């Protein structure tokens, strides 16, 4: 059983390995994808897009209190 699983794993690995190796235009695309994902997930997400409620508050109670305050505080009365 273990042999079968490792054989399957090897087949899948070789499938992807050969696929990537034989790429022509794809290499350029992969470079674009990697740069793009780096900019999105490392630069933008870490430095520019923190999850506001997750970072400002410790628990859901605080978050819901804050949002309720935002929704109800300065009403048009």
């Amino acid at each position: 059983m273990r042999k079968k699983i490792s054989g399957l794993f090897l087949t899948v690995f070789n499938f992807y390995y050969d696929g990537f190796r034989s790429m022509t235009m794809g290499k350029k695309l992969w470079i674009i994808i990697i740069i793009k994902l780096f900019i999105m997930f490392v630069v933008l997400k870490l430095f520019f897009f923190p999850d506001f409620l997750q970072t400002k508050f410790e628990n859901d109670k605080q978050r819901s209190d804050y949002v309720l305050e935002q929704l109800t505080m300065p009403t048009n009365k």
Partner: protein
Amino acid sequence: MISDIDITLVDWSRAQFALTAIYHWFFVPLTLGLSFMIAIMETIYVRTGNEEWKRITRFWMKLFGVNFAIGVATGIILEFEFGTNWSNYSWFVGDIFGAPLAIEGILAFFLESTFIAVMFFGWNKVSKKFHLASSWLVAFGSNLSALWILVANSWMQYPVGMEFNPETVRNEMISFWDVLLSPVAVNKFLHTISSSYVVASLFIVGVSAWYLLKKRELLLARRSIVLASVFGLLSALFTAITGDGSAYMVAQKQPAKLAAMEGLYQGKSGAGLIVFGVLKADAHKDKEDNFHVKFEVPKVLSLLGYRSPDAFVPGIKDLTDGNKEHNIMPTSEKMEKGRLALASLCSFKEYKKQNNQAKVDSSLGIFRANAQYMGYGYLNDPNSIIPNVPMTFYSFHIMVGLGTLFILLFMITLYLSLKNKLDKQRLLLKLLILFLPLGYVASESGWIVAEVGRQPWAIQDLMPVSVATTRIDATAVMTTFILFAVLFTVLLIAEIKIMLTQIKTGPEGGKNV
């Protein structure tokens, strides 16, 4: 409340979301439509064994790969923005928005890591039938992926299947099926995917027309044009049918959007559909004539919107000021009810703290009775329910006008192709290339109608965009707006450049992606 909010912040947050959504949508329609046509081409190859069809399949698959690679994950940025710029909204919608997006994420992951890999790397490594099955699964998977995003968007236009929990300040899903199968969601999904198929068909027809003009790859171009014309024609006709369904739902659920789409300032029975019109700059709900020029088909708007040629279609004036005869509540009354809902929500929290159960129940009762008007409580002026009329009106007419032209174009192209006369029609071939970007114009216009037309609401009747926004520094939003503008422009230029190089190289320029 609105007076307390930095309008610059709201505008920049909206502009940023609009920019990222518009750029993201440059990549999506081609993926949705091209994947199906590739699967059809490969099916023909597997059934006939004709090697030319394999060559055709691989060529379009290569262009699909370019679009997919550059477009992949551009939608993730929209999710970043929810957490940073729209945190009140994100919290308020709870799992209703989160559940469809999570399903989409999981689907996209499995799709991208498995079947797309088989599609691109699997030629000669897996059986023909398994490869074909993978191509079909990519097509179905990417369309299914779109379903969840569109379900989430539809919920914002027509919130159903949920109940607001005042303790957690979140909406909780009480019926998944009501959310998934709401008539707005069903129509939006069908209309969006069929229009995307039209965009992809125009892409294939346009590129093939270029080959015919250059007298290159003639067999590939002719076969591709026939297939894309049939697919495009059927899709364009279906888009028209689903568009009718969408407009009907807009009439029922978002009458202010319909009024803006048709520039209908004052309601009338037996309202006509404006085929072409130029709005006056000073158009206003109190004026009788708001058009410089218009060509109108009598009674059709009533027929399409309410399935009766003499039905009353409310105009902007009826929706803001109310209309007793037609049982339309004035917006000012909805605003009163909305304020009552907000005040009772506030007192609910206070009484809860004091452990005064009787008053908690009473506040909750008042809230529940007025909750459907909650969003109106934030408005200062009844006129603020009016979306940007010129933008909605022109975008709608550009979309419909182009959609009609596409039907004609596919019919002509198909007819001439079947008669073997298309190669000689050089002017038409040039026109077909010109129509390639017009597919995108129509598709983006459709989104402008949907999103600008529903303003001021982030969630229809429940939450205006001004309340949905996170109170952060407007400069930070402006900075990221500029970053996105640069990043997406670079990506779009890269896509167009690589795509053009691949088209010029043709199918022989390297068989592998």
